[in-house]
């Protein structure tokens, strides 16, 4: 099931990237997709981590949330850079708990923290994530755990 949908996705990607739709080139594409699928299947890499189908239903909401956060955080950092209406930077190093159950969820959370400017994940281990924040406000917002609950994590929907 996963293999088939992965194959369809790969073939669509191939066709759209090449931009040629003649039968010869399409069949060459189909052959290379089949070869890739065979190898990926043999290597057992089409699993819930490399191809997280189960998270797709949650992705749009998460994406909208993270985009909003990126815009807000960018405005904050730009204010600090240009020193417009800011209290000045006050770098913080904080340790946050990781409530996510899976490695994938932890990685998404850590990447989301880094993706919003003003906070960078410095260290990631099993239960804690160490974050460097540009301002006290940014650190406090993370400590409130608001972002953590938005992270798609596969155990959450059971």
């Amino acid at each position: 099931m996963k293999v088939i949908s992965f194959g369809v996705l790969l073939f669509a990607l191939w066709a759209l990237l090449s931009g040629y739709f003649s039968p010869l080139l399409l069949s060459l594409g189909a052959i290379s997709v089949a070869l890739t699928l065979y190898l990926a299947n043999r290597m057992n890499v089409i699993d819930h981590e490399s191809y997280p189908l189960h998270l797709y239903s949650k992705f749009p909401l998460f994406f909208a949330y993270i985009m909003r956060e990126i815009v807000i955080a960018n405005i904050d950092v730009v204010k600090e850079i240009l020193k417009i209406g800011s209290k000045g930077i006050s770098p913080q190093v904080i340790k946050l708990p990781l409530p996510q159950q899976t490695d994938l969820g932890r990685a998404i959370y850590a990447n989301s923290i880094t993706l919003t400017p003003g906070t960078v994940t410095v260290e990631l281990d099993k239960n804690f994530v160490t974050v460097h924040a540009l301002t006290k406000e940014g650190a406090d917002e993370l400590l409130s755990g608001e972002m953590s609950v938005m992270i798609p994590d596969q155990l959450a929907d059971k």
Partner: protein
Amino acid sequence: MIDVLSWVLLGVGGLLGVIGGIGIHRFPDFYTRLHAAGTTDTLCAILILLGLGFQAGLSLDAFKLFLIFVFLFFTSPTASHALANAAMHGGLKPQLGRENGSGKA
């Protein structure tokens, strides 16, 4: 109308890139500079790609721009994290501001 929109997006995106550059010079240490570079990574790139996307219209080019966005979305935080992690392991101490949060780290 679409031209105006895409010009605005490209202009704001370019401006954010310049501001990020100013920030890299203005901030005091490595970690804070990383945050300044973060604005160019994220919103600047997103706005420029969106502006170019409006120029491309609904075409294969737009799809390729979208792919660039997807790869940036996954790789740029990973790269930032790798930099910060390497600096921390290399023993570079961050300058800390007033009232450092929990202070546990």
